[in-house]
């Protein structure tokens, strides 16, 4: 069957995500259709019903239920997968908190799409950025190869640190665009990703209660053991995310050793060695930025690109190292935190504070609701930011928008 043979295949992003889940031998899939995610679920239901993937596929009645099914399936020891976009992800919001709070290694493919009102089915990253504070690890793919590889790695990461992982990729730009993708053999993936061994499991032989009402302060249980209060449990989730960077890097390195594509860094770097101007972007926009950087180099500027592969946990120290030599940092965001600025720009500024870096930072909001963003527009924004370098005004209060207002 197409998509299951090892070797190079021409796959769109949704197909790559489905193949990634299949190779990860997921056992329970629950999903609700939404544009542009739907083909992921169609592929997986085809694998399951055709007998090519030993899993249960549950065609639930809403996204909220999809994540509820994954949550409980994970709790009884199954490897689970779901996918959504935009309003579907927003509708999952409650369950996103619930899954992370329960420390379940659920994997969700988020096919990035704008959020209404007004209605729009095209790409930006407002949906996953809106879920930033739910306690999920967020990985952003630049290509269809990275989608497939990230899904497989996501299971290893999640099942090591017990934090769910959202693999995000741009709707249409990746989800519906075909590219050559190197599909690893099931045997190689099996050697990389052993079957899921749950750290905790609902078992009639050893009954437990999960997610009871938990008071603010630690409390002694019926057996006389002092148990964590709500705040300690929250602290442990934060600690898990703080430390997840090491696991993400080591899993990426191991993946590279086996499959020849290394993901040892939480960032993607392009021509940073001598760059005094750095373009920062996330997802497929980071690829577009490479074209812009090359154009600007042809014009005589020393420009590099910093792509954010992992947004949560945010790789603060890596960003500081990568931007150490930069004099101008131009951050492009396909999202906006209304009343403030693009979410990744805030992160960059926060990471650089107190690091000794003195770069001028400019932020541009681009590509909302599928607005096409061309490499020459990215280059234009960099050129527009050059005077700021001479003036030495480090920061603008608000971002500029590349739109017709």
């Amino acid at each position, binding site marked *: 069957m197409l998509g299951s043979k090892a070797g190079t295949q021409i796959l769109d992003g949704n197909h790559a995500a489905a193949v990634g889940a299949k190779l990860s031998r997921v056992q329970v899939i629950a999903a*609700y*259709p*939404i*544009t542009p995610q*739907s*083909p992921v*679920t*169609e592929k997986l*239901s*085809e694998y399951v*019903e*055709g007998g090519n993937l030993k899993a249960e*596929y549950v*065609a639930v*009645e*809403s*996204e909220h239920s999809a994540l509820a099914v994954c949550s409980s399936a994970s709790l009884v020891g199954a490897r689970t997968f779901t996918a959504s976009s935009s*309003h579907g992800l927003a*509708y999952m919001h409650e369950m996103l908190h619930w899954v992370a709070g329960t420390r379940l290694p659920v994997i969700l493919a988020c096919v990035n799409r704008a959020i*209404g009102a007004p*209605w729009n089915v095209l790409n930006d990253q407002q949906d996953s950025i809106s879920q930033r504070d739910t306690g999920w690890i967020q990985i952003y793919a630049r290509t269809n190869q990275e989608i497939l590889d990230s899904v497989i790695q996501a299971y290893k990461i999640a099942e090591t640190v017990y934090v769910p992982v959202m693999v995000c990729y741009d709707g249409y730009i990746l989800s519906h665009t075909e590219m050559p993708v190197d599909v690893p053999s099931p045997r190689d993936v099996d050697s990389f990703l052993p079957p899921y061994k749950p750290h905790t499991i609902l078992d009639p032989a050893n009954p437990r209660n999960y997610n009871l009402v938990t008071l603010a302060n630690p409390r002694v249980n019926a057996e006389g053991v002092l148990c964590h209060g709500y705040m300690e449990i929250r602290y442990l989730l934060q600690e898990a995310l703080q430390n997840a960077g090491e696991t993400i890097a080591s899993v990426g390195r191991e993946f590279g050793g086996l499959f020849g594509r290394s993901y040892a860094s939480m960032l993607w770097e392009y021509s940073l060695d001598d760059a005094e101007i750095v373009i920062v972007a996330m997802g497929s926009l980071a690829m577009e930025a490479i074209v812009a950087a090359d154009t600007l180099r042809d014009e005589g500027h020393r420009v590099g690109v910093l792509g954010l592969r992992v947004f949560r946990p945010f790789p603060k120290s890596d960003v500081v190292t990568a931007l150490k030599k930069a004099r101008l940092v131009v951050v492009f965001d396909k999202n906006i935190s209304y009343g403030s600025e693009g979410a990744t720009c805030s992160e960059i500024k926060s990471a650089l504070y107190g690091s000794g870096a003195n770069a001028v930072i400019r932020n541009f909001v681009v590509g909302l609701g599928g607005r096409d963003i061309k490499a020459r527009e990215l280059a234009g924004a960099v050129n527009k930011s050059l005077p700021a370098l001479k003036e030495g005004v480090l920061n603008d209060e608000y971002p500029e928008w590349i739109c017709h207002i």
Partner: protein
Amino acid sequence: MTSTTKVEERTLDSLLRLDRLPHIWCPGCGIGPAVGCFIRAVEDSGLNPDKIALVSGIGCTGRVAGYVKLDSFHTTHGRALPFATGLNLGNPDLNVVVFSGDGDLLAIGGNHLIHAARRNMDMTIICLNNFNYGMTGGQMGPTTPLDARSNTSPYGNIEYPFNVPYLVAASGATYVARWTVLHARQLEWSIAEAMIKPGFSFIEVLGPCPTLYGRMNKQPKGMDTMHHYQEKSVVKNGADPKDVGITAEGPIVVGKFVDIERPTFWEQCKLVIDRAQAKKNE
């Protein structure tokens, strides 16, 4: 001498936003004919269009709100009924119509449907049932007949579907009917009757989806499904809703199944306010 039959000319233009046309529906889709029946029903009913508000959810049928020249509201997925409830209670003089699909009203919005019926909200629901999620590409949903194929049940659906009239009747709807878009006249009259009648009126409208559901179930053209309706439909007004469940092969029982009286939510509200006021004045 040859006699000529004068065909009554009824244009739908008055209540359509012509600047939004052409519409997005596929050739052979059942939504267009259902919208035609609705517009003629508005004319038949004698209701003032300025006092009608139309609410849609998400999906192909959700697009109806954008094409009608009425106050209309295109809402989020599954939430047409809560939006409509707000409209109805904010302005009880409005005649509120919800025009949405089976996926929207019965899957993600299923909870709102049973509760709006239970409260007997004064509104008319036109539920276009094409047995699948059309907008997202033909996935199965809670109305997909057993064994029918879809993009997420490529080897046949293993789930039993809702018997929709039975569900809404049991939930408390005071008017329940089902027609196919082939039954254009009956559908038109039924919508007019439902709009005039106070309380929760529900009309299930079966319509072809040749691009997706039809193509996967041996009805690749809209006309194939219309022929299927012609062959399999049985008009049984007053049929017990529990007996009108749909299977892939038919029969399709159509007609008006429920037409009863029960106080609406707003009438109950007024009653309790009057009672409280009377007590205060004692």
